[in-house]
Protein backbone atom coordinates (compact mmCIF):
# COMPACT_ATOMS: atom_id res chain seq x y z
CA UNK A 1 0.00 0.00 0.00
CA UNK A 2 2.84 2.36 0.89
CA UNK A 3 4.54 1.44 -2.35
CA UNK A 4 1.41 2.32 -4.29
CA UNK A 5 1.15 5.66 -2.49
CA UNK A 6 4.77 6.45 -3.37
CA UNK A 7 4.10 5.64 -7.02
CA UNK A 8 0.92 7.73 -7.00
CA UNK A 9 2.91 10.62 -5.53
CA UNK A 10 5.59 10.25 -8.21
CA UNK A 11 2.99 10.20 -10.99
CA UNK A 12 1.50 13.42 -9.57
CA UNK A 13 4.96 14.98 -9.30
CA UNK A 14 5.52 14.22 -12.98
CA UNK A 15 2.22 15.85 -13.97
CA UNK A 16 2.97 18.93 -11.87
CA UNK A 17 6.44 19.17 -13.45
CA UNK A 18 4.82 19.22 -16.88
CA UNK A 19 2.24 21.78 -15.69
CA UNK A 20 5.04 24.05 -14.41
CA UNK A 21 6.80 23.81 -17.74
CA UNK A 22 3.61 24.65 -19.65
CA UNK A 23 2.18 27.12 -17.15
CA UNK A 24 2.02 29.97 -19.67
CA UNK A 25 -0.07 27.84 -21.99
CA UNK A 26 -2.22 26.74 -19.08
CA UNK A 27 -2.97 30.33 -18.10
CA UNK A 28 -3.74 31.44 -21.64
CA UNK A 29 -6.12 28.57 -22.37
CA UNK A 30 -7.81 29.05 -19.01
CA UNK A 31 -8.37 32.80 -18.99
CA UNK A 32 -9.14 33.67 -22.60
CA UNK A 33 -12.76 32.57 -22.70
CA UNK A 34 -13.88 34.01 -19.32
CA UNK A 35 -11.84 37.18 -19.87
CA UNK A 36 -13.52 37.89 -23.21
CA UNK A 37 -16.85 36.95 -21.75
CA UNK A 38 -16.70 39.42 -18.88
CA UNK A 39 -15.12 42.02 -21.13
CA UNK A 40 -18.06 41.93 -23.53
CA UNK A 41 -20.91 41.36 -21.09
CA UNK A 42 -19.69 43.17 -17.99
CA UNK A 43 -17.75 46.01 -19.57
CA UNK A 44 -18.80 46.65 -23.19
CA UNK A 45 -22.54 46.03 -22.75
CA UNK A 46 -23.05 48.43 -19.82
CA UNK A 47 -20.82 51.02 -21.55
CA UNK A 48 -22.79 51.04 -24.78
CA UNK A 49 -26.08 50.91 -22.96
CA UNK A 50 -26.98 47.53 -24.35
CA UNK A 51 -27.64 45.11 -21.61
CA UNK A 52 -29.48 42.42 -19.92
CA UNK A 53 -31.78 43.23 -17.16
CA UNK A 54 -30.08 41.91 -14.07
CA UNK A 55 -31.33 39.17 -11.89
CA UNK A 56 -34.14 39.51 -9.41
CA UNK A 57 -34.28 42.52 -7.06
CA UNK A 58 -31.68 44.53 -8.88
CA UNK A 59 -28.87 41.95 -8.79
CA UNK A 60 -26.45 42.65 -11.62
CA UNK A 61 -25.73 40.21 -14.43
CA UNK A 62 -22.07 40.18 -13.35
CA UNK A 63 -23.11 38.75 -9.98
CA UNK A 64 -24.87 35.91 -11.78
CA UNK A 65 -21.84 35.38 -14.01
CA UNK A 66 -19.05 35.07 -11.41
CA UNK A 67 -19.94 31.64 -9.98
CA UNK A 68 -21.04 30.45 -13.42
CA UNK A 69 -17.80 31.37 -15.16
CA UNK A 70 -15.70 29.83 -12.38
CA UNK A 71 -17.73 26.63 -12.80
CA UNK A 72 -17.12 26.72 -16.56
CA UNK A 73 -13.38 27.13 -15.98
CA UNK A 74 -13.40 24.13 -13.62
CA UNK A 75 -15.42 21.97 -15.96
CA UNK A 76 -13.52 22.95 -19.09
CA UNK A 77 -10.12 22.48 -17.46
CA UNK A 78 -11.05 19.13 -15.93
CA UNK A 79 -12.17 17.73 -19.27
CA UNK A 80 -9.35 19.26 -21.25
CA UNK A 81 -6.52 18.45 -18.83
CA UNK A 82 -7.45 14.78 -18.60
CA UNK A 83 -9.18 13.83 -21.84
CA UNK A 84 -6.94 15.51 -24.42
CA UNK A 85 -3.56 14.13 -23.27
CA UNK A 86 -5.16 10.71 -22.79
CA UNK A 87 -6.49 10.66 -26.32
CA UNK A 88 -2.99 11.46 -27.58
CA UNK A 89 -1.52 8.73 -25.42
CA UNK A 90 -3.99 6.20 -26.77
CA UNK A 91 -3.39 7.13 -30.38
CA UNK A 92 -0.04 8.24 -31.70
CA UNK A 93 2.17 8.76 -28.67
CA UNK A 94 1.52 5.34 -27.05
CA UNK A 95 2.93 6.76 -23.80
CA UNK A 96 0.13 5.06 -21.90
CA UNK A 97 1.71 1.67 -22.67
CA UNK A 98 4.64 2.60 -20.50
CA UNK A 99 2.64 4.41 -17.82
CA UNK A 100 0.54 1.32 -17.07
CA UNK A 101 3.74 -0.59 -16.38
CA UNK A 102 4.22 1.52 -13.25
CA UNK A 103 4.19 -0.92 -10.32
CA UNK A 104 0.63 -0.26 -9.14
CA UNK A 105 -2.76 -1.70 -10.04
CA UNK A 106 -3.87 -0.12 -13.33
CA UNK A 107 -6.77 1.76 -11.74
CA UNK A 108 -4.27 3.75 -9.65
CA UNK A 109 -2.79 5.17 -12.86
CA UNK A 110 -6.29 6.33 -13.89
CA UNK A 111 -7.04 7.67 -10.43
CA UNK A 112 -3.89 9.76 -10.52
CA UNK A 113 -5.10 11.32 -13.76
CA UNK A 114 -8.31 12.34 -12.01
CA UNK A 115 -6.36 13.88 -9.12
CA UNK A 116 -4.00 15.74 -11.46
CA UNK A 117 -6.99 17.00 -13.47
CA UNK A 118 -8.78 18.13 -10.31
CA UNK A 119 -5.69 20.07 -9.22
CA UNK A 120 -5.64 21.82 -12.58
CA UNK A 121 -9.35 22.60 -12.29
CA UNK A 122 -8.74 24.13 -8.88
CA UNK A 123 -5.89 26.22 -10.25
CA UNK A 124 -8.12 27.30 -13.12
CA UNK A 125 -10.75 28.45 -10.63
CA UNK A 126 -8.07 30.47 -8.83
CA UNK A 127 -6.80 32.06 -12.04
CA UNK A 128 -10.26 32.91 -13.35
CA UNK A 129 -11.71 34.32 -10.15
CA UNK A 130 -9.84 37.67 -10.07
CA UNK A 131 -10.62 38.22 -13.74
CA UNK A 132 -14.35 37.67 -13.53
CA UNK A 133 -14.43 39.62 -10.28
CA UNK A 134 -12.45 42.62 -11.44
CA UNK A 135 -13.27 43.13 -15.11
CA UNK A 136 -16.46 45.17 -15.37
CA UNK A 137 -17.73 48.65 -16.11
CA UNK A 138 -18.08 51.19 -13.33
CA UNK A 139 -21.19 50.48 -11.35
CA UNK A 140 -21.52 46.93 -12.64
CA UNK A 141 -19.46 45.32 -9.89
CA UNK A 142 -20.55 41.82 -8.89
CA UNK A 143 -21.54 41.23 -5.30
CA UNK A 144 -19.53 38.18 -4.31
CA UNK A 145 -18.41 36.92 -0.94
CA UNK A 146 -17.76 33.50 0.57
CA UNK A 147 -20.71 33.38 2.84
CA UNK A 148 -20.16 29.86 4.15
CA UNK A 149 -16.68 28.35 3.99
CA UNK A 150 -17.97 24.96 5.11
CA UNK A 151 -20.18 24.90 2.04
CA UNK A 152 -17.84 26.64 -0.39
CA UNK A 153 -14.81 24.35 0.11
CA UNK A 154 -16.55 21.00 -0.47
CA UNK A 155 -18.63 22.44 -3.34
CA UNK A 156 -15.44 23.70 -4.99
CA UNK A 157 -13.40 20.53 -4.42
CA UNK A 158 -16.10 18.12 -5.54
CA UNK A 159 -16.76 20.26 -8.61
CA UNK A 160 -13.09 19.83 -9.52
CA UNK A 161 -13.19 16.07 -8.91
CA UNK A 162 -16.38 15.67 -10.91
CA UNK A 163 -14.93 17.60 -13.87
CA UNK A 164 -11.73 15.55 -13.87
CA UNK A 165 -13.62 12.24 -13.57
CA UNK A 166 -15.74 13.35 -16.51
CA UNK A 167 -12.49 14.07 -18.37
CA UNK A 168 -11.17 10.56 -17.71
CA UNK A 169 -14.45 9.00 -18.76
CA UNK A 170 -14.58 10.97 -22.00
CA UNK A 171 -10.89 10.32 -22.70
CA UNK A 172 -11.33 6.58 -22.39
CA UNK A 173 -14.51 6.20 -24.43
CA UNK A 174 -14.03 8.70 -27.24
CA UNK A 175 -12.62 7.50 -30.54
CA UNK A 176 -9.34 9.44 -31.00
CA UNK A 177 -10.31 10.15 -34.61
CA UNK A 178 -13.37 12.00 -33.41
CA UNK A 179 -11.69 14.13 -30.78
CA UNK A 180 -12.47 17.32 -32.72
CA UNK A 181 -16.15 16.69 -31.95
CA UNK A 182 -15.44 16.88 -28.23
CA UNK A 183 -15.98 20.62 -28.11
CA UNK A 184 -18.97 20.77 -30.44
CA UNK A 185 -20.80 17.82 -28.95
CA UNK A 186 -19.77 17.88 -25.29
CA UNK A 187 -18.10 21.03 -24.02
CA UNK A 188 -20.19 23.73 -25.72
CA UNK A 189 -23.65 22.22 -24.97
CA UNK A 190 -22.59 21.57 -21.36
CA UNK A 191 -21.50 25.20 -21.06
CA UNK A 192 -24.58 26.84 -22.58
CA UNK A 193 -26.97 24.57 -20.76
CA UNK A 194 -25.07 24.55 -17.49
CA UNK A 195 -26.88 27.32 -15.58
CA UNK A 196 -23.82 29.48 -16.09
CA UNK A 197 -25.58 32.60 -17.32
CA UNK A 198 -28.81 32.09 -15.40
CA UNK A 199 -29.65 30.50 -12.06
CA UNK A 200 -31.36 27.14 -12.28
CA UNK A 201 -34.38 28.32 -10.26
CA UNK A 202 -35.17 30.97 -12.89
CA UNK A 203 -35.80 28.30 -15.52
CA UNK A 204 -39.30 27.56 -14.19
CA UNK A 205 -41.01 29.20 -17.21
CA UNK A 206 -39.34 26.55 -19.41
CA UNK A 207 -40.08 23.57 -17.23
CA UNK A 208 -38.89 20.87 -19.61
CA UNK A 209 -35.51 22.58 -19.85
CA UNK A 210 -35.34 23.00 -16.09
CA UNK A 211 -35.52 19.22 -15.71
CA UNK A 212 -33.51 18.32 -18.81
CA UNK A 213 -30.45 20.26 -17.62
CA UNK A 214 -30.34 18.18 -14.46
CA UNK A 215 -28.38 15.67 -16.55
CA UNK A 216 -25.63 18.23 -16.97
CA UNK A 217 -22.92 18.01 -14.28
CA UNK A 218 -21.99 21.66 -14.82
CA UNK A 219 -25.40 22.68 -13.43
CA UNK A 220 -24.42 21.39 -10.00
CA UNK A 221 -21.01 23.06 -10.11
CA UNK A 222 -22.61 26.43 -11.01
CA UNK A 223 -25.34 26.07 -8.43
CA UNK A 224 -22.93 24.93 -5.73
CA UNK A 225 -20.71 27.96 -6.25
CA UNK A 226 -23.74 30.23 -6.57
CA UNK A 227 -25.11 29.01 -3.24
CA UNK A 228 -21.79 29.63 -1.53
CA UNK A 229 -20.67 32.85 -3.29
CA UNK A 230 -23.88 34.71 -4.16
CA UNK A 231 -26.45 33.29 -1.75
CA UNK A 232 -28.84 36.20 -2.35
CA UNK A 233 -29.54 34.72 -5.79
CA UNK A 234 -32.06 31.92 -6.03
CA UNK A 235 -30.30 28.55 -6.14
CA UNK A 236 -30.88 24.86 -5.93
CA UNK A 237 -31.23 23.38 -2.43
CA UNK A 238 -27.88 22.56 -0.84
CA UNK A 239 -28.69 18.89 -0.36
CA UNK A 240 -29.50 18.54 -4.05
CA UNK A 241 -26.29 19.91 -5.51
CA UNK A 242 -24.08 18.37 -2.83
CA UNK A 243 -25.65 14.98 -3.45
CA UNK A 244 -25.05 15.38 -7.18
CA UNK A 245 -21.48 16.64 -6.76
CA UNK A 246 -20.38 14.00 -4.25
CA UNK A 247 -22.42 11.13 -5.65
CA UNK A 248 -21.59 12.11 -9.23
CA UNK A 249 -17.85 12.31 -8.47
CA UNK A 250 -17.90 8.90 -6.84
CA UNK A 251 -20.01 7.23 -9.53
CA UNK A 252 -18.17 8.79 -12.47
CA UNK A 253 -14.78 7.98 -10.91
CA UNK A 254 -15.85 4.37 -10.50
CA UNK A 255 -17.12 4.10 -14.07
CA UNK A 256 -14.17 5.98 -15.59
CA UNK A 257 -11.63 3.78 -13.79
CA UNK A 258 -13.36 0.74 -15.24
CA UNK A 259 -13.41 2.10 -18.79
CA UNK A 260 -9.77 3.14 -18.35
CA UNK A 261 -8.70 -0.31 -17.19
CA UNK A 262 -10.59 -2.00 -20.01
CA UNK A 263 -8.99 0.31 -22.50
CA UNK A 264 -5.40 -0.36 -21.47
CA UNK A 265 -5.55 -4.05 -20.59
CA UNK A 266 -6.48 -6.33 -23.45
Amino acid at each position, binding site marked *: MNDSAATLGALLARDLRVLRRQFGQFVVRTIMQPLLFVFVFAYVFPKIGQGFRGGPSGISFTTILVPGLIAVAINFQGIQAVALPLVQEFSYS*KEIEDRVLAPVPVWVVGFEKILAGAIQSLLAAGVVFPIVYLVHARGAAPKVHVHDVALFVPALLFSCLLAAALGLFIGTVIDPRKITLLFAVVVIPLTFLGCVYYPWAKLTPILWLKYAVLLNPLVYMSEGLRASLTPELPHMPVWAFMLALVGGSAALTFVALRTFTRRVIT
Partner: protein
Amino acid sequence: MYGRGDQQIVAVDGLDLEVRSGEFFGLLGPNGAGKSTTIGMLTTTVVPTGGRGLIAGMDVRRHAAAVKRRIGVVSQDNTLDRSLTVWENLYYHGRFFGVPRRRARQRADELLELFALSERAQSMVFQLSGGLAQRLMLARALVHEPEVLFLDEPTSGIDPQTRINLWRILQELHRTGQTILLTTHYMEEADQLCERLVIIDHGKALALGSPAELKENLGADTVITVTVVGDPAILAERAAALPGVRTVEREGQVVRVFAPHPEGVLAKLVEAASAAGLHVRDAASMPPSLETVFLTLTGREYRE
Protein backbone atom coordinates in the same frame (compact mmCIF):
# COMPACT_ATOMS: atom_id res chain seq x y z
CA MET B 1 3.83 -19.87 -19.53
CA TYR B 2 0.76 -21.23 -21.12
CA GLY B 3 -2.09 -19.24 -22.47
CA ARG B 4 -4.61 -18.37 -25.09
CA GLY B 5 -5.24 -15.06 -26.78
CA ASP B 6 -8.59 -13.36 -26.41
CA GLN B 7 -11.57 -12.90 -28.73
CA GLN B 8 -11.79 -15.29 -31.62
CA ILE B 9 -8.15 -15.06 -32.50
CA VAL B 10 -5.97 -17.50 -30.68
CA ALA B 11 -2.67 -15.65 -30.70
CA VAL B 12 -0.85 -17.91 -28.29
CA ASP B 13 -1.84 -21.52 -27.98
CA GLY B 14 -0.33 -23.91 -25.46
CA LEU B 15 3.06 -22.27 -25.32
CA ASP B 16 5.09 -23.61 -22.42
CA LEU B 17 8.43 -21.99 -21.61
CA GLU B 18 10.87 -21.53 -18.81
CA VAL B 19 13.53 -18.85 -18.80
CA ARG B 20 16.40 -19.27 -16.38
CA SER B 21 17.80 -16.52 -14.24
CA GLY B 22 20.62 -14.72 -16.04
CA GLU B 23 19.68 -16.21 -19.37
CA PHE B 24 19.44 -14.43 -22.71
CA PHE B 25 16.34 -16.04 -24.14
CA GLY B 26 14.73 -15.44 -27.52
CA LEU B 27 11.26 -15.78 -28.97
CA LEU B 28 11.76 -16.09 -32.69
CA GLY B 29 8.98 -16.16 -35.22
CA PRO B 30 7.47 -14.36 -38.18
CA ASN B 31 5.14 -11.38 -37.75
CA GLY B 32 1.86 -12.46 -36.23
CA ALA B 33 3.36 -15.57 -34.61
CA GLY B 34 2.17 -14.52 -31.14
CA LYS B 35 5.39 -13.05 -29.78
CA SER B 36 3.99 -9.70 -28.66
CA THR B 37 0.93 -11.33 -27.11
CA THR B 38 3.25 -13.57 -25.12
CA ILE B 39 5.26 -10.58 -23.92
CA GLY B 40 2.02 -8.71 -23.17
CA MET B 41 0.80 -11.56 -20.97
CA LEU B 42 4.10 -11.81 -19.12
CA THR B 43 4.24 -8.05 -18.57
CA THR B 44 0.61 -7.92 -17.28
CA THR B 45 -0.90 -5.79 -20.06
CA VAL B 46 -2.63 -8.66 -21.84
CA VAL B 47 -4.92 -10.88 -19.79
CA PRO B 48 -4.67 -14.52 -20.89
CA THR B 49 -7.92 -16.45 -21.23
CA GLY B 50 -6.18 -19.46 -19.75
CA GLY B 51 -2.89 -20.63 -18.40
CA ARG B 52 -0.41 -19.11 -16.04
CA GLY B 53 2.66 -16.92 -16.09
CA LEU B 54 5.17 -16.64 -13.29
CA ILE B 55 7.87 -14.01 -12.94
CA ALA B 56 10.33 -14.66 -10.12
CA GLY B 57 7.74 -17.07 -8.70
CA MET B 58 4.89 -14.52 -8.78
CA ASP B 59 1.71 -14.97 -10.78
CA VAL B 60 1.35 -12.24 -13.40
CA ARG B 61 -2.39 -12.00 -12.94
CA ARG B 62 -2.73 -12.15 -9.19
CA HIS B 63 0.33 -10.09 -8.32
CA ALA B 64 0.49 -7.75 -11.28
CA ALA B 65 1.90 -4.77 -9.36
CA ALA B 66 4.64 -6.86 -7.73
CA VAL B 67 5.50 -8.40 -11.10
CA LYS B 68 5.69 -4.95 -12.72
CA ARG B 69 8.13 -3.86 -10.02
CA ARG B 70 10.53 -6.64 -11.07
CA ILE B 71 10.45 -6.22 -14.82
CA GLY B 72 11.72 -3.69 -17.31
CA VAL B 73 10.03 -3.46 -20.69
CA VAL B 74 11.19 -2.03 -24.00
CA SER B 75 8.19 -2.07 -26.30
CA GLN B 76 8.07 -1.99 -30.08
CA ASP B 77 6.73 1.56 -30.22
CA ASN B 78 8.34 4.69 -28.90
CA THR B 79 6.55 5.17 -25.58
CA LEU B 80 8.86 7.85 -24.17
CA ASP B 81 7.25 10.71 -22.26
CA ARG B 82 7.13 13.50 -24.86
CA SER B 83 6.45 16.18 -22.26
CA LEU B 84 9.71 15.54 -20.41
CA THR B 85 13.40 15.91 -21.14
CA VAL B 86 15.69 12.93 -21.73
CA TRP B 87 17.01 13.14 -18.15
CA GLU B 88 13.53 13.56 -16.66
CA ASN B 89 12.32 10.45 -18.49
CA LEU B 90 14.82 8.42 -16.50
CA TYR B 91 14.42 10.30 -13.22
CA TYR B 92 10.61 10.09 -13.09
CA HIS B 93 10.64 6.47 -14.21
CA GLY B 94 12.83 5.71 -11.20
CA ARG B 95 10.47 7.66 -8.96
CA PHE B 96 7.46 5.70 -10.27
CA PHE B 97 9.27 2.56 -9.15
CA GLY B 98 9.94 3.90 -5.69
CA VAL B 99 13.61 4.71 -6.23
CA PRO B 100 14.52 7.43 -3.68
CA ARG B 101 15.10 10.92 -5.13
CA ARG B 102 18.86 11.03 -4.76
CA ARG B 103 19.33 7.50 -6.07
CA ALA B 104 17.00 8.24 -9.01
CA ARG B 105 19.10 11.27 -9.95
CA GLN B 106 22.25 9.19 -9.70
CA ARG B 107 20.77 6.36 -11.81
CA ALA B 108 19.63 8.83 -14.46
CA ASP B 109 23.14 10.31 -14.70
CA GLU B 110 24.82 6.89 -14.75
CA LEU B 111 22.58 5.48 -17.44
CA LEU B 112 22.88 8.53 -19.67
CA GLU B 113 26.64 8.15 -19.39
CA LEU B 114 26.52 4.41 -20.09
CA PHE B 115 24.29 4.87 -23.13
CA ALA B 116 26.25 7.87 -24.44
CA LEU B 117 23.26 10.17 -24.05
CA SER B 118 24.71 12.62 -21.51
CA GLU B 119 24.99 15.41 -24.07
CA ARG B 120 21.30 15.14 -24.78
CA ALA B 121 20.24 15.12 -21.13
CA GLN B 122 18.28 18.35 -21.40
CA SER B 123 16.79 17.73 -24.87
CA MET B 124 13.10 17.11 -25.14
CA VAL B 125 12.57 13.53 -26.27
CA PHE B 126 10.71 14.43 -29.45
CA GLN B 127 14.00 15.87 -30.70
CA LEU B 128 15.71 12.47 -30.59
CA SER B 129 16.36 10.34 -33.66
CA GLY B 130 14.93 6.83 -33.77
CA GLY B 131 18.19 5.21 -32.68
CA LEU B 132 18.68 7.55 -29.72
CA ALA B 133 15.06 7.12 -28.65
CA GLN B 134 15.60 3.36 -28.74
CA ARG B 135 18.64 3.67 -26.52
CA LEU B 136 16.79 5.91 -24.10
CA MET B 137 13.91 3.41 -23.90
CA LEU B 138 16.40 0.70 -22.99
CA ALA B 139 18.07 2.96 -20.41
CA ARG B 140 14.67 3.77 -18.94
CA ALA B 141 13.76 0.10 -18.61
CA LEU B 142 16.91 -0.37 -16.50
CA VAL B 143 16.54 2.55 -14.05
CA HIS B 144 14.85 0.45 -11.37
CA GLU B 145 17.25 -2.49 -11.86
CA PRO B 146 14.68 -5.05 -12.99
CA GLU B 147 15.19 -8.77 -12.54
CA VAL B 148 13.93 -9.51 -16.03
CA LEU B 149 14.32 -7.26 -19.04
CA PHE B 150 11.74 -7.71 -21.83
CA LEU B 151 12.57 -6.48 -25.30
CA ASP B 152 9.80 -6.65 -27.89
CA GLU B 153 11.31 -6.45 -31.36
CA PRO B 154 13.80 -3.82 -30.27
CA THR B 155 15.50 -3.55 -33.64
CA SER B 156 12.60 -3.61 -36.06
CA GLY B 157 12.69 -0.53 -38.21
CA ILE B 158 16.06 0.80 -37.13
CA ASP B 159 19.14 1.12 -39.29
CA PRO B 160 21.85 -1.60 -39.37
CA GLN B 161 24.47 0.51 -37.57
CA THR B 162 22.11 1.27 -34.70
CA ARG B 163 21.10 -2.37 -34.57
CA ILE B 164 24.68 -3.53 -34.16
CA ASN B 165 25.27 -0.92 -31.45
CA LEU B 166 22.21 -2.15 -29.63
CA TRP B 167 23.40 -5.76 -29.91
CA ARG B 168 26.68 -4.77 -28.27
CA ILE B 169 24.86 -3.06 -25.40
CA LEU B 170 22.61 -6.08 -24.90
CA GLN B 171 25.54 -8.49 -24.91
CA GLU B 172 27.25 -6.30 -22.31
CA LEU B 173 24.11 -6.32 -20.14
CA HIS B 174 23.90 -10.07 -20.42
CA ARG B 175 27.50 -10.40 -19.26
CA THR B 176 26.61 -8.48 -16.10
CA GLY B 177 24.01 -11.16 -15.32
CA GLN B 178 20.87 -9.48 -16.59
CA THR B 179 18.07 -11.91 -17.48
CA ILE B 180 16.79 -10.90 -20.91
CA LEU B 181 13.80 -12.09 -22.89
CA LEU B 182 13.85 -10.83 -26.44
CA THR B 183 11.40 -11.25 -29.27
CA THR B 184 12.54 -10.83 -32.81
CA HIS B 185 11.63 -11.82 -36.31
CA TYR B 186 15.23 -11.50 -37.43
CA MET B 187 16.86 -14.92 -37.55
CA GLU B 188 20.32 -13.43 -37.49
CA GLU B 189 19.54 -11.44 -34.36
CA ALA B 190 18.31 -14.48 -32.45
CA ASP B 191 21.33 -16.46 -33.64
CA GLN B 192 23.81 -13.77 -32.56
CA LEU B 193 22.35 -12.88 -29.18
CA CYS B 194 20.35 -15.67 -27.60
CA GLU B 195 21.67 -18.50 -25.48
CA ARG B 196 18.46 -20.39 -25.98
CA LEU B 197 15.47 -19.64 -28.10
CA VAL B 198 12.07 -20.93 -29.00
CA ILE B 199 10.83 -20.79 -32.55
CA ILE B 200 7.12 -20.03 -32.59
CA ASP B 201 4.56 -19.83 -35.33
CA HIS B 202 0.77 -19.50 -35.09
CA GLY B 203 1.11 -19.24 -31.32
CA LYS B 204 2.74 -22.65 -30.95
CA ALA B 205 6.29 -23.57 -30.04
CA LEU B 206 8.00 -25.42 -32.89
CA ALA B 207 11.41 -25.97 -31.37
CA LEU B 208 13.42 -24.99 -28.32
CA GLY B 209 17.15 -24.98 -27.77
CA SER B 210 20.38 -23.09 -28.28
CA PRO B 211 20.94 -21.81 -31.82
CA ALA B 212 23.68 -24.41 -32.30
CA GLU B 213 21.50 -27.25 -31.00
CA LEU B 214 18.64 -26.22 -33.21
CA LYS B 215 20.88 -26.16 -36.24
CA GLU B 216 22.44 -29.53 -35.43
CA ASN B 217 19.43 -31.47 -34.22
CA LEU B 218 16.88 -30.40 -36.73
CA GLY B 219 18.72 -31.72 -39.73
CA ALA B 220 19.67 -28.36 -41.04
CA ASP B 221 22.27 -28.80 -43.73
CA THR B 222 24.73 -26.67 -45.58
CA VAL B 223 22.96 -25.68 -48.77
CA ILE B 224 25.13 -25.60 -51.88
CA THR B 225 23.69 -24.01 -54.97
CA VAL B 226 25.14 -24.46 -58.45
CA THR B 227 23.73 -22.61 -61.44
CA VAL B 228 24.66 -23.93 -64.89
CA VAL B 229 24.02 -23.07 -68.52
CA GLY B 230 21.95 -25.89 -70.03
CA ASP B 231 20.00 -28.80 -68.55
CA PRO B 232 21.32 -29.71 -65.10
CA ALA B 233 19.66 -33.15 -64.98
CA ILE B 234 22.93 -35.05 -65.30
CA LEU B 235 24.57 -32.86 -62.67
CA ALA B 236 21.71 -33.46 -60.24
CA GLU B 237 22.03 -37.19 -60.73
CA ARG B 238 25.74 -37.16 -60.09
CA ALA B 239 25.38 -34.84 -57.10
CA ALA B 240 23.00 -37.26 -55.39
CA ALA B 241 25.71 -39.92 -55.54
CA LEU B 242 28.36 -37.77 -53.85
CA PRO B 243 29.38 -38.67 -50.28
CA GLY B 244 28.10 -36.20 -47.65
CA VAL B 245 24.99 -35.26 -49.63
CA ARG B 246 21.54 -35.93 -48.23
CA THR B 247 19.15 -34.67 -50.89
CA VAL B 248 19.22 -32.76 -54.15
CA GLU B 249 16.62 -30.41 -55.61
CA ARG B 250 16.43 -29.07 -59.14
CA GLU B 251 14.81 -25.85 -60.12
CA GLY B 252 15.34 -24.54 -63.69
CA GLN B 253 19.06 -24.23 -64.20
CA VAL B 254 19.76 -24.43 -60.48
CA VAL B 255 20.79 -27.49 -58.53
CA ARG B 256 20.39 -27.22 -54.77
CA VAL B 257 22.32 -29.71 -52.70
CA PHE B 258 21.62 -30.31 -49.00
CA ALA B 259 24.78 -31.58 -47.37
CA PRO B 260 25.19 -32.56 -43.71
CA HIS B 261 28.91 -33.06 -44.42
CA PRO B 262 29.75 -30.38 -46.94
CA GLU B 263 33.56 -30.71 -46.99
CA GLY B 264 34.76 -30.85 -50.59
CA VAL B 265 31.24 -31.16 -51.99
CA LEU B 266 31.30 -27.78 -53.75
CA ALA B 267 34.57 -28.59 -55.60
CA LYS B 268 33.27 -32.02 -56.63
CA LEU B 269 30.08 -30.50 -57.95
CA VAL B 270 31.97 -28.02 -60.10
CA GLU B 271 34.17 -30.89 -61.39
CA ALA B 272 31.12 -33.01 -62.12
CA ALA B 273 29.53 -30.15 -64.04
CA SER B 274 32.67 -29.72 -66.22
CA ALA B 275 32.86 -33.48 -66.80
CA ALA B 276 29.26 -33.39 -67.99
CA GLY B 277 30.13 -30.55 -70.34
CA LEU B 278 28.09 -27.96 -68.43
CA HIS B 279 29.26 -24.38 -68.03
CA VAL B 280 29.02 -23.25 -64.35
CA ARG B 281 27.65 -19.71 -64.08
CA ASP B 282 27.46 -19.47 -60.29
CA ALA B 283 28.21 -21.58 -57.22
CA ALA B 284 27.52 -20.74 -53.60
CA SER B 285 27.56 -22.42 -50.22
CA MET B 286 25.22 -21.39 -47.37
CA PRO B 287 26.05 -22.77 -43.92
CA PRO B 288 23.21 -24.13 -41.76
CA SER B 289 21.14 -21.28 -40.35
CA LEU B 290 17.98 -20.78 -38.36
CA GLU B 291 16.39 -20.05 -41.70
CA THR B 292 17.03 -23.62 -42.83
CA VAL B 293 15.74 -24.80 -39.47
CA PHE B 294 12.51 -22.84 -39.91
CA LEU B 295 12.19 -24.23 -43.44
CA THR B 296 12.62 -27.77 -42.14
CA LEU B 297 10.09 -27.26 -39.32
CA THR B 298 7.30 -25.57 -41.22
CA GLY B 299 7.92 -26.70 -44.75
CA ARG B 300 7.64 -23.13 -45.95
CA GLU B 301 9.82 -20.13 -46.54
CA TYR B 302 10.42 -17.87 -43.57
CA ARG B 303 8.48 -14.63 -44.01
CA GLU B 304 10.20 -11.79 -42.20
